[in-house]
Each structure stands twice: as structure tokens, then as C-alpha cells.
């Protein structure tokens, strides 16, 4: 029984330990949600202070790249969910493949994000660099916020890739019918996804007219 092998110090029963691991991850994600909550509060303040310029600045982002990334991240999250169900129903091979595809999609997300950053660099929209030039002060403020928020989200994507990678490589995790590690990694991955689902309309959609 792989579950009993993994029983650690204060616990007497595997079921109780699983619940604790799950609860720990959920509480941690609540903490992460508050981290980004501060950012969204800042975005709201920027938009309330400068409603017109905020929308104009948003229009300079590449809507299609952001939209494509949204679709990619959602699909990646779906693959993570499939991996959990596969592990639970005793299909470790399917779980491994699903996790693998979730990771590939996550890497694709980062690639597109990097390409988008490159485009913004070419247009002189990266604050602090020599070639930076902005139409309005608010546009610079907006781009500051854009780089901090997408950068922080990108860090979370990388951590997520690491977690999914560890789950994919661990045979014990794939064969665990309770899907403790895969389940918690997927839970984290869904949070990264959800944060993007809020970042996307905050950053990209105001510019759609």
C-alpha cells in the first residue's frame, strides 16, 4: 500500500493525513489569492483614477496573444484535472501523459508570453529601458502594472510547472489511487489558471472597443 508507506510523523491514519495535505494546500491557495488580491486592488485604483487613459493604454497590448494564452492555460488546467481523475481511476500511464501535456501547454504559455514581451520591447513599451517611450504618463503606469502582475503570474506558472513535473516524474504519485500529490499540484495549477482568468480581462479586455 503506497499510502501507508507515505504516512508521516504526527498522523495515525492515511485518510486523515490526506485530508490534512489537502486542507494545507487550500489554505495556502487562500493566501495566494490574497497576494494577487492586492494587485487587483491596485488595478482597480489605477482604472478609477484614470478611466480613459487606462483603456487607451490597454489597447496597446496584443489582444490575440493574450486570448490565445487564455485558451492554452485553460486547456492545460483541463489536462491537469484529467490527470487527477486518471490517477484516481488507476490509470498511471494516462495520468503521466496528461501531466506531460499540461506541462507542454504551460511552456507554450510562457513562450507566447516571452514573444509578447519581446514585441513590447521592440515598441519601446518596457519601462526603465533606454528605448522606452510612452504616449501618456498613465500608459507608463499601466505598463508598470502590466509587467509586475504578469511577471509575478509568470513566476507562479514556473512553480506550477515544477510541481506538475515532480508529480509526472514520480511513479508513486501516478500510482497513488488517492492522487494526493497530483491532486494538490493540480489544485495549485488551477489557482494559477484562475488568476490569469482575472488578469486577462483586467489587462487586455478594457482596450477592446
Amino acid at each position, binding site marked *: 500500500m503506497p499510502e501507508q508507506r507515505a504516512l508521516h510523523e504526527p498522523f495515525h491514519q492515511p485518510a486523515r493525513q490526506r485530508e490534512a495535505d489537502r486542507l494545507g494546500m487550500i489554505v495556502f491557495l487562500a493566501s495566494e489569492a*490574497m497576494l494577487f488580491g*492586492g494587485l487587483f486592488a*491596485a488595478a482597480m485604483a489605477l482604472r478609477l483614477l484614470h478611466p480613459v487613459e487606462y483603456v487607451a493604454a490597454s489597447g496597446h497590448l496584443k489582444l490575440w496573444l493574450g486570448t490565445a494564452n487564455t485558451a492554452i492555460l485553460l486547456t492545460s488546467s483541463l489536462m491537469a484535472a484529467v490527470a487527477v481523475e486518471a490517477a484516481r481511476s488507476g490509470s498511471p500511464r494516462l495520468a503521466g501523459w496528461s501531466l506531460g501535456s499540461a506541462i507542454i501547454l504551460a511552456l507554450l504559455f510562457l513562450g507566447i508570453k516571452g514573444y509578447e514581451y519581446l514585441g513590447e520591447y521592440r515598441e519601446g513599451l518596457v519601462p526603465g529601458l533606454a528605448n522606452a517611450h510612452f504616449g501618456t504618463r*498613465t500608459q507608463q503606469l499601466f505598463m508598470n502594472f502590466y509587467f509586475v502582475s504578469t511577471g509575478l503570474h509568470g513566476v507562479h506558472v514556473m512553480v506550477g510547472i515544477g510541481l506538475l513535473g515532480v508529480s509526472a516524474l514520480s511513479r508513486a504519485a501516478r500510482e497513488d489511487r488517492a492522487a494526493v500529490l497530483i491532486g494538490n499540484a493540480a489544485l495549485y495549477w488551477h489557482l494559477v489558471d484562475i488568476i490569469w482568468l482575472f488578469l486577462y480581462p483586467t489587462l487586455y479586455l478594457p482596450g477592446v472597443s
Partner: protein
Amino acid sequence: MSDAALDIDRPDEEVEDISYLRAGHSLGSWFLTTDHKRIAILYLVSITFFFLIGGVAAALIRLDLLTPAGDLMTNEGYNRAFSLHGIIMVWFFLIPSIPNTIGNFIIPLMIGARDLAFPRLNLLSWYIYIVAGFITLAVVLGGGVDTGWTFYTPLSTMYANGMVVATVVAVFISGFSTILTGINFIVTIHKLRAPGMTWSRLPLFIWSHYAVSIIFVLATPVLAITLILVAAERLFGIGVFDPALGGDPLLFQHLFWFYSHPAVYIMVLPAMGVISELITSAAHKRIFGYWFVAIASIAIAVIGFLVWGHHMFVSGQSIYASAFFSFLSIAVAVPSAIKVYNWTATLYKGDIMIDAPLLFAMGFIGLFVAGGLTGLMLAMLAIDVHVHDTYFVVAHFHYIMVGGTVTAFFGALHYWWPKITGRLYNETLARIAAVVILVGFNLTFFPQFMLGYEGMPRRYHVYPPEFQLLQVFSSAGAALLAVGYAMPTFYLLWSLRRGPRAPANPWGATGLEWTTSSPPPKHNFTQQPVVVRGPYYYPLEHPASRANA
């Protein structure tokens, strides 16, 4: 993992009789331990060290304020001294003080668990704290910061000299330690209660630590993102607060106080939990109104999230927002008052044992009431406008943080010292220390209420000569307070070598932590405890029950 398989069968008898202090003497057995009791000791030593450094900064401040001209330090030096005092005391002493030492040690014992839910995470939390602490020490050696502990923008992002980014990074890192502790406590309290330990049987110490863990987890990340934004603005110039770009420095204050006001409750809620234990144990009586005290902790945690705007009454916040925050700030006093009334009612007709823990607890109640009532004054818009940023505010929050939390911390340390170390300390010296601390504290901070009401602003070291008398009183009080704080260091350390061995339950108190030996065995209990009744079951009608102490 190798010994995990043993746990299922639990060959308790052979391994569990050794006390946790004797289970391994190597350096590795301390620095790589996952035992919550040893990690609590690691925390105790480290926070004591930071208390000393923060205390030295405070001593410099009080010395400098002896003369109206501020002869000891330059303006810049004074700014750095009070900034370091605040930063070190808030993040490296007060916030981890009770939860990470006493809480870490006592929570699993109180609920009948073998350890916290995530023992390795607990150790990691200490290491993160230490890394943050070292960065802070580097900042101290490198010249410090002059932003105050609040890092207000645009001072911190544009104008301040000194190591702002390093300090911000240190506080940011220490936040992870706090969050991990919060997660650990919440999961432990949910999932590791002994059979029969229902929510209605939890000691109030546990309730208040549950409440504070919620704040740990939900408020600290907001500080983290705020500090990320400050560091990004200062380092890379990508700021969202920059007024030159149309950014809003007031946004910083909103985000900062959204964390930092709940942080006040982070400091005082564990102290309240301690007082509930100390009072019931000293009175040998059940707490008056268990559910009121328990729910008051949760209410303080929840309402505490909604009062941050009272720090910004004079910052240009809308008057409607201010009125709203004023109302909520007054509302948060209600659960605090409930606790004070219930502690007092618990003492009424109790079989009271006037030992050092009770003296500290009584000191806490008095000082907390003084701090709380002046807090109500500050919550009034009309008064706050006059005394904002004066010594009145300084005195108010020191009554809560130092008079409240530090007094409770010392009370807790005395109360659980026999359990933690297995030794009894000198009771007479402890009582004297409690009284010296109470007198020294009031002599230090009561004059500051008067100074503030007369108009002495905070954060200035040059002041009009008419304030000198009160400033001298305050500095004299600080010297006495230092003596009071130093005393326990000596007699507690002395008790480690020479103190008589403590019985399992020296106070005749209830609570699972007193049913195991002092100091507890490595795995806390030789048998899995089973709980059959609520906490604080003191049959007052049968004083003989104290005989088993």
C-alpha cells in the same frame, strides 16, 4: 520515511519515556529537528536575540530624548534608530513572539497531538525566519533605513537613503515564515485533535491561535505584494505608486494598513489566549462565558480586516470612508471588551492563587484596557485629527503591543516554563519582576499620553524645552522597564541548572498539556489522550482536587 512504518504499530513504551530535551544532544538533533517543542525553543532563543537588538535601539531613542536638543544622535541617525526599533520589534519579535514559541510548543500538547500537522514545514518556517533575520542584521550593520517601519511612499521609493530594498526583502521573506506557521496551525487544529476534543472543548488559547492563523494566512500576502510593488518601484522604476506618473501614494497606505492593522491583532490575539489560560488556572474556575470569549477571537479577526482606514483619517481619504472606518474601529472594541469583562468575572469568587502568571495577567488586563480605551479615542474622527502622529498614538499602541503582548508573553513564559524546561523558577523574584515591569512600563508610556495630548509629534528628536520633564520621566521608566525585562533572563536561566524539578502539573491546572510529564516526552504523550469533558473543569466545590498538583 524509514521510521514511518513503525508509527502504525506505535511501540510507544520503549521510545516515548525519554523527555524531548534528552532525545539527542548533537547539534543536528536541534537544527534539523522536526519536533515542534525543539523548534519552539529555537524560536525562543532567536526572538529573544531580536528583542535585545530592538531594545538597544529603543534605549538609544530614550537616551537621545533626554535633552530637547537631541544631543546623542544626528537627525538621520535618530530616524534610523526608530525605524530599526519598529521593524525589528514588529516583524522579528512581536509577530512571532507568542505563536511561534509558546503556541508552537503548547498547541499540539493542548489538543492531544503528537506534533503539528507539517513538522518539516515548521522547521522550514524557522529557517526562513532566520534568513530574514540575517538580512535584517546586515541592514543594521550596513547603516539601516530611515523610512520608519511603515515604508510610506514616495519616501521609501524615491527619497529615502539607506538599505530600503534589503529591509523590504527581509520583511517579505519573514512573511513566508508567518504564512507557513498559519497554515500549520489551521491544519493542526482541524485535523489533529485527540479523540473527544470537540470544537466546544478547545482551550481558548487554541481558539485565539486559530483566529490569528486566519490573519496570518490572509493578511500577510497583502503585505508581500505591497512590498514587491515598493521594491519594484525603487529598484527598476516600475512603480504603481509614483505620483509623477499619476500613481497614487495613498494606494500604498491602503494596502499597507490592510495588512498592518490586522497585524496588531496578530500581536494581541495570542496574548488574549494566554490570559484566558492564566486567569482560569489562577482562579481555579471555569472561564465565564466560554463561547463569548471564543467567538470574540474570531470576531476580532474578522472585523480587524475592516478597520484599516482609521490610520488614514488625515491622509486625504474621503470623509464618508473615514466615518465608516471610525464606526468599525469602535465596533472592534466590543469583542475586546467582552473578553476583559469575562476574565474579570472569572476571577470573581475564584479560589485565587496570586503567583507570577496571575500578576502578569492582571498587568495585561489593566494595560490592555488603557490601550484599548485610548484606541477608542483615536477612532473618533474629531480627536484623531488633533492627536494624529503625536506621542498619544505612540503611547496607545505601546500599551497594546508592549503592555499587552509583551506582558502576556512573559506571563506565558512563566506559566509554561515548568512544562517547557521541567524546572521551577524562583517565585519571589518572578513576582518582583512582574511588578517592576508594570511600574516601569507605566512610567515609560503614561507620560507619552500627556506629551501627545500637549502636542509633541512622534518621530522628532528635537523638541520644545517644556516637554523635557515628561520625556525624562519616560526615559527613567524605560530604564526601569529594562531592569524588569532583564530579571527573568537571569532567574529563568538560573532555574535551568539549580531550579527544583517541576511536577507534571505545578499549578493544578486543567488542560492536556498538564497531564503529560514535565518536560514532555519526545512524542508528547505516552498514551493517546482521550478527552471526556470541556476545558477548565475545576470542581470549586472540591478544593481537594488541588492536592494532586
